[in-house]
């Protein structure tokens, strides 16, 4: 080592010793305050989010009958109940009490956004659609999230009148597993001899409806509700009796979903397991926590049995 390098090293060591013994770490002190401030800022942001969440919880106006429209806001508690049905309830109910199961189509599987497509075609006035939406929303909430769902009821002049339910009109659904395309063709508001029209099926939905919603898959042609699970399986009509929902409010129905022995849970949760099994059949069995659960695997054995 040269003398110059040794001298340079000695000077550097001397500066270091001085910094540690005689000079306060100015950068360290102000940096320390910045570090502490950063931690406090993050904690304050978290506390702020929690406080805001608690303050706004339940502030959404509940379903109101004041409006003249056919739909209203779904009470947050209803959505919460539907989205938080425990896995134990799904597994205890299993297939529950269903009237029909999806039939097998085994057709060409459409793909939208890189995901298989499940399409629902129904109408707000239709009492069987009113019943079928409950298990569809309950099941699909295990695969993704709905937003913009509205509260509505079936026609007051049809069988199972005023069955309380959701409307898919104007709603969105996001899932990493499937694309869900619901269509509500009409409202529950009479117009002439029929009901006020709402959504028009797109080409894919119309094709599914025309190709599979009739013989040899179903005895009736064009009946609603119709659901196609990526043209592999499909259902027509209500999968359980709408009678179990008669006279119940949305809150009462949603609450009953958590009681496996209730007739509501036997119908809705049983069908939700079948809907889940059909979705698992088209999305590669994901997520495993749903698709491998006892309730869904029990329902999977009924797929294709009609």
């Amino acid at each position, binding site marked *: 080592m040269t003398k110059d390098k040794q001298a340079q090293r000695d000077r550097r060591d001397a500066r270091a010793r001085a910094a540690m013994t005689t000079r306060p770490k100015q*950068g360290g002190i102000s*940096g320390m305050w*910045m570090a502490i401030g950063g*931690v406090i800022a*993050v904690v304050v942001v978290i506390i702020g989010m929690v406080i805001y969440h608690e303050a706004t919880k339940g502030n959404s106006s509940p379903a109101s009958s004041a409006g003249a429209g056919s739909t209203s806001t779904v009470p947050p508690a209803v959505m919460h109940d539907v989205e938080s049905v425990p896995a134990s309830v799904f597994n205890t109910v299993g297939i529950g009490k269903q009237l029909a199961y999806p039939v097998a189509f085994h057709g060409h599987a459409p793909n939208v956004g890189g995901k298989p497509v499940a399409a629902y075609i129904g109408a707000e006035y239709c009492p069987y659609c009113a019943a079928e939406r409950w298990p569809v929303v309950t099941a699909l909430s295990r695969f993704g999230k709905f937003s913009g769902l509205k509260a509505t009821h079936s026609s007051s002049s049809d069988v199972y009148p005023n069955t309380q339910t959701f409307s898919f009109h104007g709603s969105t659904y996001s899932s990493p597993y499937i694309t869900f395309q619901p269509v509500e063709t009409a409202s529950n508001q009479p117009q002439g001899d029929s009901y006020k029209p709402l959504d028009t099926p797109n080409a894919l939905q119309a094709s599914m409806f025309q190709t599979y919603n009739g013989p040899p898959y179903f005895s009736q042609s064009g009946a609603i509700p119709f659901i196609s699970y990526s043209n592999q399986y499909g259902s027509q009509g209500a999968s359980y009796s709408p009678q179990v929902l008669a006279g119940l409010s949305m809150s009462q129905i949603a609450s009953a979903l958590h009681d496996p022995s209730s007739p509501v849970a036997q119908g809705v949760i049983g069908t939700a397991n079948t809907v889940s099994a059909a979705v698992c059949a088209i999305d590669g069995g994901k997520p495993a926590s749903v698709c491998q659960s006892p309730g869904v695997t029990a329902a999977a054995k009924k797929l294709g049995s009609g």
Partner: protein
Amino acid sequence: LEVADRDEVWDPPAWAWPVTTILALVGLGLSIYLTIVHYSTAVTLACSSTGTINCEKVTTSPESYLLGRPVAVWGLVYFVVVLVMCLPAAWRSQSQAMKIGRVALAILGVLFVLRLIYAELFEIDAICLWCTAVHAVMLALFGAVLVATAAAGNPPQTAS
């Protein structure tokens, strides 16, 4: 953190590596558990699945995925990298890249935690206790890395 004299010594406090290493190990352990549960059908989260506390709802939500991979897997990768950067040799390192990288990683982690907490509160409407434990570890790690870096007296340089 402010610009420091290049000649000022890098002298991290004695507690820096043990504290951050332990936190990284705890975070890694939690992430491994969440990853195993995600991919296994034989293991379920030891957590409530009803009401506001609902781990299953959170871990099976669309928000539990990032760039097509489960967030638990990203957490596992994150804590492996953080663990390496919090070992004694890494804390002793004079490398500016190491110092800046460690702080940047801590900030990135805590920003992601804020995003996940927002998702739990406002999008999923459920809280996952295991995820909250990871968030707490991440916040503690963030604080420890920042304070230790500042106390080292030669914070990472942001300009030359």
